[in-house]
């Protein structure tokens, strides 16, 4: 059977026996005590609930702040790492720019190729120079032959001068002094030519010896450079394979970073959704507090006050100690209660709707 606690109509009169009256008195006394305690308990529970809500919100806000701070720092770290691996410039509007790791590898590889190429060029130039020296040597041989001829000519002229002098003396005609003088001059010229030929030949020999040494050194250098260049080329090829592998590794790392970034983004979304449940839970608890606890508290308080009022107005109906307790509690402060708000349904429909 339901009773309306707000109904103030007096109950119908009834005949009550002495034994029943005692039992009724006990029940009323118990009801009064129980309703007072329950009312206090409900009020206390409401306050606790409110505090729990406030504390959970404060905790969630702290977690949110830390979460944001961590995400900002992680974001900066990731950006720096990715920038290092990619060809991004270090800062917007920054004066100095630097190479990313793949670019650095490419530049290094290019430089090595250039050095090897130059070494090969040098080796080829040395070989060309050796060929030129061969040509010079051939020319020097020709000059040598010409000098031989010149020498032979000088010898023939001297002999011719001598023979002419002898022949002229044997004929014994005229003044031979001017003729002898001319013959001597021819002989002298021939000797000078002979001497010059000898000196030229000596000079040529010296040049040939120097050129020989130079050629020998150049040949050795050229050989060494050629070997070094070939070795460098092999090394660079090997290095290219390594750098290529490194570049691939960088690409794989970047892909890994991107994939990790996507996973982190999904995790962040989950955290954001999870964090919202604090607010949702808080609202629902607040709803319970208002709807259930406050209305229960109000109902109990109403029933308690009405019973107490009746007992105090009719003290002869109740034992003295019960009446005394009620008088003492008259001044006790009671928590005010507000009317419960309209309930919120749990009907679920479309989560997002644009009108």
């Amino acid at each position, binding site marked *: 059977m339901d009773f309306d606690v707000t109904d103030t109509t007096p109950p119908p009169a009834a005949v009550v026996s002495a034994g029943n009256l005692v039992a009724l008195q006990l029940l009323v006394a118990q009801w009064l005590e129980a309703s007072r305690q329950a009312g206090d308990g409900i009020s206390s529970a409401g306050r606790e609930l409110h505090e729990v809500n406030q504390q959970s*919100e404060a905790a*969630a*806000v702290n977690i*949110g*702040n830390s*979460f*944001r701070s961590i*995400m900002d720092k992680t974001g900066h770290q990731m950006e720096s790492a990715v920038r290092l691996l990619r060809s991004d410039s270090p800062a917007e509007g920054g004066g100095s720019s630097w190479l990313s790791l793949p670019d650095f590898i490419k530049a290094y590889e290019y430089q090595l190729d250039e050095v090897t190429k130059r070494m090969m060029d040098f080796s080829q130039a040395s070989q060309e120079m050796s060929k030129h020296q061969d040509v010079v040597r051939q020319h020097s041989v020709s000059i040598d032959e010409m000098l031989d001829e010149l020498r032979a000519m000088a010898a023939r002229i001297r002999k011719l001068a001598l023979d002419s002098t002898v022949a002229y003396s044997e004929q014994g005609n005229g003044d031979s002094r001017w003729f002898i003088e001319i013959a001597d001059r021819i002989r002298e010229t021939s000797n000078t030519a002979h001497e010059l030929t000898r000196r030229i030949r000596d000079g040529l020999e010296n040049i040939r010896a120097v050129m020989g040494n130079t050629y020998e050194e150049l040949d050795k250098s050229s050989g060494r450079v050629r070997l070094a260049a070939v070795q460098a080329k092999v090394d660079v090829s090997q290095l290219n394979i390594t750098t290529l592998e490194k570049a691939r590794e960088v690409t794989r790392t970047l892909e890994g970073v991107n994939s990790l970034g996507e996973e982190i983004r999904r995790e*962040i*979304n989950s955290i*954001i*959704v*999870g*964090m*919202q*449940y*604090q*607010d*949702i839970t*808080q*609202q629902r608890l607040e709803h319970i507090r208002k709807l259930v606890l406050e209305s229960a508290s109000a109902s109990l308080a109403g029933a308690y006050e009405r019973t107490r009022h009746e007992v105090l107005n009719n003290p002869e109906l109740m034992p003295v100690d019960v009446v005394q307790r009620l008088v003492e509690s008259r001044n006790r402060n009671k928590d005010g209660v507000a009317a419960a708000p309209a309930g*919120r*349904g749990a*009907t*679920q*429909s*479309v*989560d*997002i*709707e*644009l*009108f």
Partner: protein
Amino acid sequence: MANILIIDDSMTMRQMVNFTISAAGHKVTEAANADEALQSAQSQRFDLVISDVNMPGRSGIELVAELRKLPDYKFTPILLLTTESQPEMKNKGRAAGATGWIVKPFDPDALLSVLRKVLPAN
């Protein structure tokens, strides 16, 4: 980059909405209730407003109606973000002039997708 005003009495919710939206490159201003929101809306022009419905003082639906009275906010997209999902509440929001209704908890990707839809292209 859009200038966005978010209103919620729950600081956690404001944080989460702010984090999601600012991470996408938008500028965010927060308000804890309708009065603060109206004050902000009058002091600067926002491209989008996202408001809770149940708040102390004026509700989000009342805020929408107030904002629609301001000449600068006649056509500004206003989204309501709430745990409420009853059709009659949605109808009240629509009647007040709300552009859309999002039920909490929101998915960040879905929220950003809605923003892209309602924000002007430029």
